[in-house]
């Protein structure tokens, strides 16, 4: 104890050596003394009585040898016992280590009273036990939080996908054929599309929030909401875009931007008006629409936009997508690209079939590579 307080480090080696030397000195000292007594007797006997006495002294000599042998045995025993006692804690350490390996971190450690390597081994072992226990507890908490997070993300994904409008099939009342598909790269995504009919016209949009995952999903929901509200009372595509942009630019400190394409189609005439805010140009009948991209939403509050217009013939497909389609990659980083996109457009397919075909083409192309970006498509056709 005093030694520990004074921080004097002992060494197991020195202790063992000290003990050994002590025993050797004591035992050999005693046997030397005893042996010496008999040697003197033999010498005296030889001096006094000659060989006869010497022969009689043989018993003495045997006794002498016996004494030495006994000395060796005692010495060996004492040495063995000393070393065993000093090293004994190691067995307990081994058992404790096995216990810890089995998961019992409370395994008992031997009490060490010396201030040598054994003591420090015990300290280190004890520290290790505590550290392991702490880490396991932390890991347990992290896993619980992770499980909760995953649960919440699953719910969020369902909610996000249910926000999207359902497909339209041509009916007697509505001669619109619309189909949309959105596959987030993670649990939730930053792509969006929306469409609704108001005053006999089809208002639709497609968009891509910069980024992926939860932050992008928050802005996606906001953008969809804005589109619904603004397009519910404003007919002009330029104004719709300008208004939504003003709202999104306000307070946009993190500079999240949304590429956006909005269109208004009058199915009674085939007249289409559109506005492009930094988004991929849609395809009409396999050809890119002349829609020069303006600034994405959220970049600059006073940004101005150009509206475009054209006539869509009956039964012609308008195909909209986000860059998750053209930039879908294989493991070798080859991209799907516009050529493959155009190559997979087939004019006689209905919207659902077309999107399913395109989806399959992307899956076949990408193979086992993980999905790198949200994949979104919207196809529109009208009949009279």
């Amino acid at each position, binding site marked *: 104890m005093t030694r520990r307080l004074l921080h004097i480090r002992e060494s197991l080696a020195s202790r063992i050596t000290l003990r050994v030397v002590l025993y050797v000195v004591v035992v050999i000292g005693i046997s030397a003394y005893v042996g010496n007594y008999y040697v003197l007797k033999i010498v005296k006997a030889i001096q006094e009585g000659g060989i006869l006495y010497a022969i009689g002294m043989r018993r003495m000599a045997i006794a002498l040898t016996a004494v030495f042998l006994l000395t060796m045995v005692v010495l060996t025993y004492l040495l063995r016992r000393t070393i065993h006692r000093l090293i004994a804690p190691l067995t307990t350490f081994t058992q404790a280590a096995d216990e810890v390996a089995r998961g019992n971190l409370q395994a008992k450690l031997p009490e060490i009273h010396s201030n040598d390597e054994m003591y420090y081994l015990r300290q280190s072992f004890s520290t290790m036990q505590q550290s392991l226990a702490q880490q396991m507890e932390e890991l347990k908490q992290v896993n619980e939080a992770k499980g909760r997070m995953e649960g919440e993300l699953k719910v969020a994904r369902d909610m996000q996908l249910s926000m999207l409008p359902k497909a339209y099939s041509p009916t007697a009342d509505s001669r619109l054929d619309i189909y949309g598909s959105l596959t987030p790269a993670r649990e939730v995504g930053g792509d969006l599309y929306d469409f609704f009919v108001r005053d006999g016209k089809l208002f639709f949009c497609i968009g891509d929030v910069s980024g992926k995952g939860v932050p992008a999903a928050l802005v996606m929901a906001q953008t969809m909401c804005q589109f619904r509200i603004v397009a519910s009372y404003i007919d002009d595509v330029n104004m719709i875009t300008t208004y939504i942009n003003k709202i999104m630019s306000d307070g946009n400190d993190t*500079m999240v931007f949304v*590429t956006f394409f909005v269109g208004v189609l009058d199915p009674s005439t085939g007249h289409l008006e559109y506005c*492009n805010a*930094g988004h*991929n140009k849609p395809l009409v009948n396999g050809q890119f629409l002349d829609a020069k991209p303006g600034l994405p939403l959220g*970049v600059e509050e006073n940004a101005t936009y150009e509206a475009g217009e054209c006539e869509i013939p009956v039964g012609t497909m308008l195909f909209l997508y986000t860059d998750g389609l053209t930039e879908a990659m294989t493991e070798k980083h080859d991209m799907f690209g516009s050529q493959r996109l155009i190559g997979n457009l087939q004019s006689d397919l209905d919207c659902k079939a077309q999107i399913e075909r395109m989806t399959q083409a992307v899956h076949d192309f990408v193979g086992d590579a993980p999905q790198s970006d949200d994949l979104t498509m919207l196809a529109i056709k009208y009949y009279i």
Partner: protein
Amino acid sequence: MDTETYVLGEELDSFNHQEVQEGIKAILEKGNSAVLDMTACKYVSSTGLRVLLFAKKMAATKGLKIYLKGVNAEVQDIMSVTGFDGFFDYV
């Protein structure tokens, strides 16, 4: 007005956007306009574009500017397609 140059690497994306943003911020906070040397830059992701937007906005609040230098055809294409033609100043 003094300018200081910040040199970008081969990519500007979600992996290094924080670092680049801090680097540009440091220049602007000294009161210097920033020249972003993008000669080595081959790819800018949407997160990367956000850094450029953030830099431009921050510069404007301090009465400073940022300039893009050495933008290659591919990166310029990415920016054009996203509607950023004529949005940035070049040098």
